[in-house]
């Protein structure tokens, strides 16, 4: 845990120094120290361009990116726990398709001029999808079978498929805006502001606290519904709270940065090899690992590669093969 936190801090500092303008790590530390202690004397001696680059451009982007990575990983571990399925990810319930659909509507209606509309529409789309999926998989006549993992996954897939078709239709009628839609869907952290960071952090803090509070119940749920209930877990309440928490985390991530795949699936999986399946260790460590991983990917597209590749594409292109390798190696040893 300590190791992962240190690693994340180091990564943030390294990432701050890399980019179009290289700033030496020593100066970064001095600047951060000056800012934290509010020592104006130190800040006075620093190049004003550097300050602008760090505080207005890089730091918000880096922190937002780390926040999104963390939130996706926490959301992924929650979904895998509730759905009793190590293949689940934040997008299993169709949350991403809902968000994408909302964003497409906003782009086509040309609401993007109003600045917040696209993320806001994406968020609304995600929430609506979640409630539709939960409504489909719940029956008041047979509450025991309701919200079972099979029902949830199936309704998620159906709703997701309908929304995907809807997105295709919107692309078809979008004319020249189609490129805007496509780029939004691929995800990016370019020009993220402190406002984005605050939103992500707020939701991450809430989501993380809720998940840690219910982490032990999530362990018991993996024994099966009846055993968990006999050990004092209020199944319905816990399931609904954790589903909403996980989906909200995913929805916020999608609305801030577009669809970024594989982090939510891959990170909890890899971390489980280190910590074992105990959610009380898995969730915090996944959070740190997710933040580090996504930040690493974003730093590569931002500072190392000659052209900025959309981050969603990069995570899938690198995460996918890595996942295949880990899967093959650990499953059949």
């Amino acid at each position, binding site marked *: 845990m300590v190791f992962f936190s240190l690693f994340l801090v180091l990564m943030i500092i390294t990432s701050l120094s890399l980019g179009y303008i290289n700033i030496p790590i020593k100066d970064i530390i001095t600047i951060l120290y000056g800012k934290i202690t509010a020592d104006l004397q130190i800040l006075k001696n620093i190049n004003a361009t550097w300050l602008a680059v760090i505080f207005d451009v890089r730091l918000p982007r880096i922190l937002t990116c780390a926040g999104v990575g963390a939130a996706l990983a926490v959301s992924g571990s929650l979904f895998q726990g509730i759905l009793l399925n190590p293949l689940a990810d934040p997008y299993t319930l169709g949350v991403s398709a809902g968000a994408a659909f909302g964003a497409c509507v906003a782009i086509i209606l040309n609401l993007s001029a109003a600045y917040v509309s696209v993320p806001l529409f994406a968020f609304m789309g995600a929430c609506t999808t979640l409630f539709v999926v939960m409504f489909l998989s719940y029956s008041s*006549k047979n509450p*025991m079978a309701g919200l079972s993992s099979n029902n949830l996954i199936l309704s998620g897939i159906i709703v997701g498929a309908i929304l995907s078709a809807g997105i295709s239709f919107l692309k078809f009628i979008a004319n020249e805006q189609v490129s805007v839609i496509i780029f939004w869907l691929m995800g990016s952290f370019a020009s993220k502001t402190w406002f984005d960071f605050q939103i992500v952090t707020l939701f991450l803090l809430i989501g993380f606290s809720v998940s840690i509070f219910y982490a032990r119940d999530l362990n*018991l749920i993996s*024994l099966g519904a009846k*055993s968990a209930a*006999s*050990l004092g877990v209020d199944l319905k309440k816990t399931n609904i709270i954790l589903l909403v928490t996980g989906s909200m985390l995913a929805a916020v991530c999608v609305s801030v940065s577009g669809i970024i795949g594989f982090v939510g699936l891959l990170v909890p999986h890899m971390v489980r090899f280190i910590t*074992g399946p105990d959610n009380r260790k898995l969730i915090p460590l996944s959070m740190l690992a997710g933040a580090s991983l996504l930040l690493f990917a974003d730093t590569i597209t931002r500072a190392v590669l000659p052209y900025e590749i959309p981050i969603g594409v990069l995570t899938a292109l690198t995460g996918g093969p890595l996942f295949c390798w880990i899967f093959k190696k650990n499953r059949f040893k």
Partner: protein
Amino acid sequence: MELSLNNISFAYEGDMVIQNIGCSFVSGNFYSIIGPNGSGKTTLLDLISGFLNPCAGHIEIDNKTILSLTKKEVSKKISIVSQDYSINFPFSVKDVVMMGRHPYIPRFSHPSMDDFVKVETMLEVCGIKHLQDRKINELSGGEKQRCVFARALCQDTPILLLDEAFSNMDINHTLHMLKLVKQSIKEKNRLVISVFHDLNLASSWSDELLMLKQGEIKAFGNSQEVLTQQSIKDVFDVRSTVEFNEHVQAKQVYYSTNI
């Protein structure tokens, strides 16, 4: 401790599964529920454990309805070994058995010394000590079932419900586990209700038998009185011979081959 069911009924989407059952169970006894497939045995256990709520009637423990107790309080009174014992995540056997102690451990604290000792002894007596560090999802069906059994025993509740808890164990382990259960009935004055398919095991180990057919009680009472050729014919629709066996000191059932 007395567990009483007062005229409870339960229906899944209109189909009556449990119809107006009223009976009571007293601690210090081993009760067995027998009956054909789909007769409502598992549903009855689910109602007792509070996993399902009856549509009509109510269940009382020492004259207090289960509904008035919190889930936490119920978890300290009733434990269950359910039919479904598959676990998807690679928890170690020791962790799974420790989960039986969770009702006693506050949410954010570590297990106490006492909890560790209880888990350790339970692993020992259930004969799964050599498996303690293995991953539960890599064990065989019978081994898994013994671990889940140990988990429920570790919960240390006055009422223990067994839903075909021996279905995948070999005869050696089945008898070993039954002996453990019987012992704990004597020592801790437990109340055990078990669903059995094997009528002979049910007859030789339990004090009382409850025969269920289509959600209704067909017979309930002393094992030796309930188990007759006629009652088996009525409930299971098979021809059999029922004799008192000196060796097991209980009635045993033999089925004829020409059905």
